[in-house]
């Protein structure tokens, strides 16, 4: 990186090279086709090429790269989950994230902040203690702290929450971080592109060709592509893609909204989450408070945002930080969250041979981007899911073996 800076310093022209090739026409066939050019799909393409030597891959994106939930989340990375299966999986993701800027040669603004999940009730404290013990058992840095320690880390926080919901304690998670989400998608896209993966934007999949229970190819807005392997990594569009493949899933789509304030001088170091007040907040590297709340209460396939959401969220923010009353909200948006009944993802093989699913990422997908890419790449290359993601298989529902993570969802959705 410094060498490249020096080159630009000495050069009269400042032409930055493109991040990835602008492909227009797909080839007639590929070894694998990945539907969805978000973080997960691009990471899977990158690791297929890098770890497994499979470079004859097309990534098809209906819109633009990282324009879906990759660019719509609140960028929090953490591994303080409730089940050992979940903690192990997300911890592996945090570990890749920590070295990812270096690996992808792009500044992800990965910033380890420390993450407090605030508890306002005795029952919430019980869940925090439970999560802390599971985390410690698996070797993840999480422990329960009292109000004094929270005040020390964040003196601006009104511990009584305006008297409505006094904070009794919190689950503290040291590795909790934020990162620049678009850069994750761009970094993986460039990495995959350099290894020979073809990326197509504005390319919609309109059908999946299956014969004798085996994938033959995909129909797209740029013509038919024949391929024996298809990965669906499309978050909120999963039910539509699965319908094309004739696969039933428990996934239901609910909008999840978020917003940011105007930029301020840095004052909030930690990431704060309150389940009872339905708020999660962190301050971005450019000074905005990035805030999210719970899911919209009913199924809609839309990314519209609403006034109800901002009113509800800000009233709770003011319980926590009364001094923010003059701060303005400058942007709000929504994404389509593909929710599962047990708040765990659905990853791995499906009843259709050659059709792989990376879905059910609901409100917890961004943090899992690197590890889901790596494990889905392994699943596709070996036609077998690694042990790490077996608890997330689609068949767990008909086997009545759920992986219940609702207690570790950032807010009570």
């Amino acid at each position, binding site marked *: 990186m410094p060498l490249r800076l020096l080159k630009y310093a000495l050069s009269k022209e400042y032409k930055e090279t493109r991040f990835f090739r602008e492909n227009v026409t797909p080839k007639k066939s590929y070894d694998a086709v990945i539907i969805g050019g978000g973080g997960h799909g691009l990471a899977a393409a990158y690791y297929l090429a890098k770890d497994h030597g499979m470079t004859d891959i097309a990534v098809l994106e209906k819109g633009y790269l990282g324009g879906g939930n990759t660019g719509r989340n609140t960028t929090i990375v953490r591994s303080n989950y409730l089940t050992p299966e979940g903690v192990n999986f997300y911890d592996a993701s945090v570990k890749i994230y920590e070295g990812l800027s270096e690996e992808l040669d792009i500044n992800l603004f990965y910033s380890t902040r420390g993450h407090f999940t605030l508890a306002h009730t005795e029952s919430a404290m019980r869940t925090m203690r439970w999560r802390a013990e599971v985390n410690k058992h698996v070797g993840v840095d999480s422990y329960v702290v009292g109000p004094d320690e929270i005040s020390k880390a964040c003196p601006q926080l009104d511990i009584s929450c305006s008297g409505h919901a006094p904070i009794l304690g919190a689950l503290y998670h040291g590795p909790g971080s934020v990162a620049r989400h678009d850069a994750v998608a761009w970094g993986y896209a460039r990495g995959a592109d350099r290894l020979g993966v073809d990326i197509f934007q504005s390319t919609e999949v309109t059908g999946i060709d299956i014969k004798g229970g085996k994938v033959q190819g995909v129909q797209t807005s740029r013509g038919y592509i024949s391929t024996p392997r298809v990965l669906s990594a499309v978050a909120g569009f999963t*039910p*539509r893609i699965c319908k094309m493949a004739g696969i039933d899933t428990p996934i*239901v789509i609910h909008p999840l909204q978020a917003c940011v304030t105007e930029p301020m001088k840095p004052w909030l170091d930690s990431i704060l989450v309150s389940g009872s007040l339905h708020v999660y907040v962190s301050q971005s590297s450019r000074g905005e408070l990035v805030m999210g709340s719970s899911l919209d209460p009913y199924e*809609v*396939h839309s990314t519209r945002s609403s006034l109800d959401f901002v009113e509800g969220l800000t009233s709770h923010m003011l319980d926590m930080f009364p001094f923010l009353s003059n701060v303005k909200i400058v942007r709000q948006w929504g994404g389509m969250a593909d929710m599962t009944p047990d708040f765990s993802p659905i990853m791995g093989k499906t009843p259709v041979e050659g059709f792989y699913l990376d879905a059910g990422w609901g409100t917890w997908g961004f943090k899992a981007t690197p590890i889901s890419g790596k494990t889905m790449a392994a699943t596709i290359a070996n036609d077998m899911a690694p042990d790490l993601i077996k608890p997330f298989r689609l068949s767990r529902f008909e086997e009545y073996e759920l992986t219940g993570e609702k207690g570790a969802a950032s807010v009570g959705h």
Partner: protein
Amino acid sequence: MKLLTCPINGVRPLSEFVFGGELRDMPEAECSDKEWADYVYNRNGAPGLKKEWWYHSPSGTWFVAERDTLTDNVARTYLYEQEAAK
């Protein structure tokens, strides 16, 4: 403010209502474990015009809404009993 029509109480703000999920038929008690799992977990998640349970909380009224989950337009609402009687 979004509005929804309760078949008993007329047009009311959406905040008075609770979403109860899609209206689906329960399989027979003798069905296989697989059929039961399909009923318990699997959903028709793709967008489209669906029949859904909605609940008007202040009056305790359960009713059915026909709603397009892509556009969020409600085609009509009615009491389940009314339709069943036809």
